[in-house]
């Protein structure tokens, strides 16, 4: 029998806020243990939670990006359990009235090659609810240590419908979520720092059926490849069980990246009774429609909408949109440059996708120079493109100017002057050089006159050589066309 996988994801995303979910203690990654704490985080007697409005707004923005319903009211519940990762021994979360209901997120599956766009589809969401993150335990042979720095960090749990059919789709979902959330400044989604964490529910069913079979829940998927490998490993395991006529037991399994296997953590019968009840310390949250609409108005353009717009409006190829649109820092660089000179989007995009990325890679040992450390500003790049367009500097010389701008953060014009790269505009000279070139290649001249437009390229090499590279190719082309048609 042929099987298909039915996969649902629960993605925990740490929201970017100044302070924690229910107190003014700072939040962030990498501080020395137990420094981002206060009476609320430590669960001292008498401490009370107060909701962080910024986290509410960030969550609403996630919902708006995903076309979720934002109910007018949501509320807070306590999830009670004893474990040292939570100082109060309960976690404040949203049980039955979450901040976002339903919705869907567009994803792009891997295409047949890097240069060809993959299939787009939408993954349905069940809900997203806001809660507080828990502390971090480190276990040693005899003791365990706990760090409450992470405790209380605003955490949005985004739950998909069992609407995913393969590990590739699961990965595509996470990538899309990360692109959208980073672009909107909602989260940095760095899985290595635990800012995005994923659990996956997996079951199998006969292909074409619409039953939902017993599922298992995979925890501890702390990287994109972990998600991919764990799902694939679990699909194989369930397949083998079914092949042998066995049944799948509902359980929670832990992914062990080292062994590449999932191991049973606990069965259904060990499920906690969390004794959920509304948190009496917190009032229900009312979200006025005007507030939701003003948040909607401020949202950045969705990644795939931007991609389609660039394709239609600027005629960008996929290779360009996949670089510019899928990286919000580059698309922001592009948009800012466009605002200062919008006449040649393709040239701008090409500089960003090729030259900028190349130079960033060359100035960093490992990976790319962070965009914040790039000295060249978008408006300066726009200036360079304008100067090329206006014929002030020849396009083939602009690269040298670009590199100098990237390295120094200086404006293009003084660099052009200093390096003597300005197109001197001496058409008399150019005309003489072109005439020489035509005279030196009568065959090509004949071919051009006979209608073979490409033949004109044969003159370019000698002309560039004769002008010592200073000739502007566009002007050369115009001059050649003029001379050849005389």
């Amino acid at each position, binding site marked *: 029998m042929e099987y298909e996988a039915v996969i649902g994801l629960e993605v925990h995303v740490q929201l970017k806020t100044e302070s924690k979910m229910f107190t003014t203690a700072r939040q962030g990654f990498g501080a020395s243990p137990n420094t981002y704490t206060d*009476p609320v985080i430590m669960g001292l007697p*008498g401490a*009370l939670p107060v909701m962080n409005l910024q986290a509410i707004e960030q969550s609403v923005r996630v919902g708006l990006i995903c076309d979720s319903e934002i109910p007018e009211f949501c509320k807070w519940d306590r999830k*009670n359990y004893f474990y040292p990762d939570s*100082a109060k*021994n309960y976690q404040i979360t949203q049980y039955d009235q979450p901040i976002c209901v339903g919705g869907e997120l567009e994803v792009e599956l891997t295409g047949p090659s890097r240069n060809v766009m993959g299939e787009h589809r939408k993954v349905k969401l069940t809900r997203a609810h806001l809660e507080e993150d828990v502390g971090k335990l480190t276990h040693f042979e005899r003791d365990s240590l706990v760090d409450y720095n992470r405790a209380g960090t605003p955490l949005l749990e985004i739950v998909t419908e069992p609407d995913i059919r393969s590990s590739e789709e699961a990965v595509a979902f996470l990538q899309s979520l990360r692109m959208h959330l980073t672009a909107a400044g909602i989260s940095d989604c760095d899985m290595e720092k635990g800012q995005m964490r994923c659990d996956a529910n997996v079951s199998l069913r006969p292909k074409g059926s619409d039953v939902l079979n017993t599922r298992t829940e995979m925890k501890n998927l702390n990287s994109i490849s972990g998600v991919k490998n764990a799902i694939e490993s679990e699909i194989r395991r369930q397949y083998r069980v079914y092949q042998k006529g066995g049944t799948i037991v509902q359980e929670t399994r832990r992914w062990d990246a080292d062994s590449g296997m999932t191991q049973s953590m606990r069965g259904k019968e060990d499920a906690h009774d969390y*004794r959920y*009840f509304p948190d*009496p310390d917190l009032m229900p949250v009312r979200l006025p429609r005007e507030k939701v609409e003003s948040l909607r108005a401020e949202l950045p353009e969705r990644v795939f909408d931007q991609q389609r717009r660039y394709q239609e409006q600027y005629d960008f190829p996929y290779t360009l949109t996949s670089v510019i649109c899928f990286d919000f820092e580059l698309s922001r660089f592009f948009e800012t440059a466009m605002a200062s000179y919008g006449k040649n989007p393709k040239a701008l995009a090409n500089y960003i996708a090729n030259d900028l990325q190349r130079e960033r890679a060359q100035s960093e040992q490992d990976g790319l120079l962070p965009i914040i450390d790039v000295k060249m500003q978008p408006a300066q790049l726009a200036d360079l493109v304008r100067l090329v367009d206006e014929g002030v500097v020849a396009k083939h010389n602009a690269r040298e100017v670009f590199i100098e701008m990237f390295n120094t953060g200086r404006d293009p014009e003084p660099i052009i002057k200093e390096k003597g790269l300005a197109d001197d505009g001496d058409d008399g000279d150019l005309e003489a050089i072109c005439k020489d070139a035509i005279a030196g290649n009568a065959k090509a001249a004949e071919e051009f006159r006979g209608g073979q437009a490409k033949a004109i390229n044969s003159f370019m090499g000698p002309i560039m050589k004769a002008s010592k590279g200073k000739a502007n190719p566009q002007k050369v082309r115009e001059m050649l066309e003029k001379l050849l048609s005389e």
Partner: protein
Amino acid sequence: MPEALYQQTATELQQGLQEGAFKSVDIVRSLLERIDAVDGDIGAYLHIDKADALAQAEAADARRAGGKALSDWDGVPISLKDAIAVKGQPLTCASRMLENFVSPYDSTVASKLKDAGCVLLGRLNMDEFAMGSSTENSAVKPTLNPWNKECIPGGSSGGSAASVAALECPWSLGSDTGGSIRQPASHCGVVGIKPTYGRVSRWGLAAFASSLDQIGPLARSVEDAAALLELISGKDNRDSTSVPEPVPAFRKALGQPVKGLKVGLPKQYFDNSEGLDPEVREAVMAAARHFESEGCELVEVDLPHADLAVPVYYIVATAEASSNLGRYDGVRYGYRSANASDAIDLYYKSRGEGFGEEVKRRIMLGTYVLSSGYYDAYYLKAQKARSLIRSDFAKAFEQVDVLLAPTAPTPAFRRGENTEDPLAMYLADIFTIPANLAGIPGISLPCGFSKSGLPIGFQLLGKSFDEASLLRFASNFEAAHSFARQSPEL
């Protein structure tokens, strides 16, 4: 004017300080001597740092001498129930669980009192984690009723009431979850106010039941109680359930006429057979007749769901408590069992050894009513019944300005009388619990003595945030009957 400083009310002390008749250190010394003399018997205090109290008083005197008094109350001492956090002072909730815990932060009420310059004198005994009606559940020691040491002082704020009655502090703060200010005030013959839920910040009050808890004043005069309520009230950004309602100058309500106003007598509070003591009934009816003689109209009102209050309370309060007390686990602070074999065992043993019987009983009750499969039958149903109780009061206040009722069904009972019978103990709060469930304010004030010489109190209940009306009626009654200024022979 009483001869000794410890006998004076806070208002009198404040006036004397302003007139320069004495200093804050004189007051504190007088109180410390009084405490030394009587508290060995009464047991109202759990902790006093004498040197620190005198240092606070000296600082207050220096401010006043320099013309920089923080407020009229600068240098007036106060003591707090041991569930209200003061930075650097013990916060034990009279529990073994917190016997060595010192608060690293101030409650909002403590900050407000410090801002006013009050001397935070000491920590007052209570039922463990405010669970009880007799202060017999203190893990440290019982507090005795200053009027009769064979009797309980009421609870859970027994130390707060007894200390004020025994002239061991001019006024104090307690907390009221189901009557824990009003019932001991009634048993000790002092004035006690449970403010409207949301009137006073709970930040820094070790939680028993979050949706019911409210800090409030105990004092020997309505004026003192009103002044203290002014000092501690107001919206607090650290407590989401505190309400941005303006805080009136409560003392302005004192002495305002009550003629023509309507006083409701809830028939369920007088008719029922829940053991309303005839002497209590007679004293409370006499208080009602006082208002009639002042030109008020007495109106019988119906609170049809009054009988649901106790069962609803013991579901809601225990459910919240079972979660609120989860934090006491021996991991980060507080009592930690030395006998634990592993992490899970550490929870079991620390909590098993650290909590007393009543606390464990209520945690188990609360855990049960929230359990999967029982939630709808208990907690959800209790919440629905709670809204019926709330609307009973709302309807009653369409007819009348205040409600008048007994505070407790009997005068203070004898020590040990109810300790083996938790249900009998729970019924001690039958008249006080409804106000907590409805969130409305209540004041208890003394209205006489039983034949055996025990104080009897009555309570006035008002609309939400209408403490001013309660104070108006209370001051009118007090003007004619100065029961609260009578002190027990000690």
